[in-house]
Every structure is written in C-alpha cells, then in structure tokens.
C-alpha cells in the first residue's frame, strides 16, 4: 500500500481536512492509500518512510521524496489536476 504524508502548520486542522479529502478522492479512483499527518517542520525527518508528501505550506526538505504543494484540497480550485498529478506520482 502506498503511503502519503500530509503536512500543514499545526498537524490538526488543515491537514485533517486535506487528508480526508485526498483519501476520499483517491478511494473514488480505486486507490487504497495510507495517509498520515504531521507538522511541516517534521517532514524532513519523517518523509523517508512515505512515497509522497502533500503539503499546504513550505517544507525544509522531503528526503528526496516527491512533494505536491497545494491549497486545492481546501479551496477546491485545481483539485482534479492535483489528483491526476498525485496518482501519476504514486504509480
């Protein structure tokens, strides 16, 4: 199973919304993923264990893992293009 790390400033409000929306949209495409949340500041030390990072904010490094920085899972704007990109990066 692919693993995605979702990051935001406090790892509670924003990333919870992003993780829920991302999980729903990937499930709708038949993709079963594991999603964990963290603070942006924790990404450099945690990213190595994941296939992909999705963040609403800047991070200081992703241990070489791909990152999608987007607000689309909050605003809805451009969300389909981001889901395509994420599906591509996971396959």
């Amino acid at each position, binding site marked *: 199973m692919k693993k995605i790390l979702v990051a935001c400033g406090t790892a509670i409000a924003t990333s919870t919304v992003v993780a829920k929306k991302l999980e729903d949209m990937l499930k709708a495409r038949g993709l079963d993923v594991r999603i964990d949340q963290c603070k942006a500041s924790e990404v450099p030390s945690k990213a190595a264990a994941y296939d992909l990072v999705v963040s609403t904010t800047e991070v200081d490094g992703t241990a070489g893992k791909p990152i999608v920085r987007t*607000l689309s899972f909050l605003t809805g704007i451009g969300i389909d293009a981001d889901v395509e990109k994420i599906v591509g990066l996971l396959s």
Partner: protein
Amino acid sequence: MGQLLHGVDDTIFLPRLAASSDRAVIEALAAALGDHVLPSFVGAALAREKRSPTGLPFPDVAVAIPHAEPEHVARPAIVVASLASPVKFRQMGSPRATVDAALVVMPALSSKEQAGAALASLIQSLQDARIRAALAAAATADEMRAAVEGGGR
C-alpha cells in the same frame, strides 16, 4: 442541526465584525470562543498565524482559518465571522502573498478525530461560491447559520 455541527459542541456566528488587522480579528474571534479555549489560545493562534499563515485565496470571498494547537482548547467549537471590511491575511503556503479575507473561520479543535469532520464539512461548504457570498452578505448570526446549513440555496 446541520452537518456543520457534527462532532462540535458549538458553532458561533459573528456577523460583520469590525476589525482593522489580522491580529485584531484573531483576538476578537478567540474572545468569542470564551471558555471553550484556555487563556493561552489567543497567543498560540497569533504565533501560529505568524509562523504559518492561514489565508485561503477563494475567488471573490477569501477566507482565513486561524487556529491553535489542541492543548490550548478546553471544548471544541468553531467561530465563523464575516468582516465589515476585508482584512489582509498572509496566504497559506505563500507568506509573501496576502488575501483580502471577508470571512474568517476559527476552529478550536481538541482532537482531530472528534472535530476534523466538522471542519472538513465546513471547508467543503465554503468551496461553494454561493455559500461564501451568502455568508458574507448575512446581517445576523441566524442568517449566517442559515447560509451554511441551507447549502446556499
């Protein structure tokens, strides 16, 4: 009670709040949360906004979602405010950019399992331009509640 309130004790609506800065908005909304939050909440929310801004560039009606960590929360609640005049918040993920926020949502979450669904459904509602417009135009708390729960219809 609509989906907005799922998992959250209280949703507080503040229509046409007059505030001159993002700091003043955060202070007013934290005060509106009353004993849902600890005295440390407002300082934590201000620090969080500085470190990691929360302005979201929705078209027409931008929204900011300032908040603080769960350890500053006593009981979960969400404040939804419309502003008498838009206030600049720095944009989430792009702190050099600003948005002119006309709506501000301050979630006070004590655990993501409990309250995340409420915030997620509120954010989902805010993705509807009609709901954003209705919330921004509402003159009373009851009208704001109706705007969210009526799905903008």
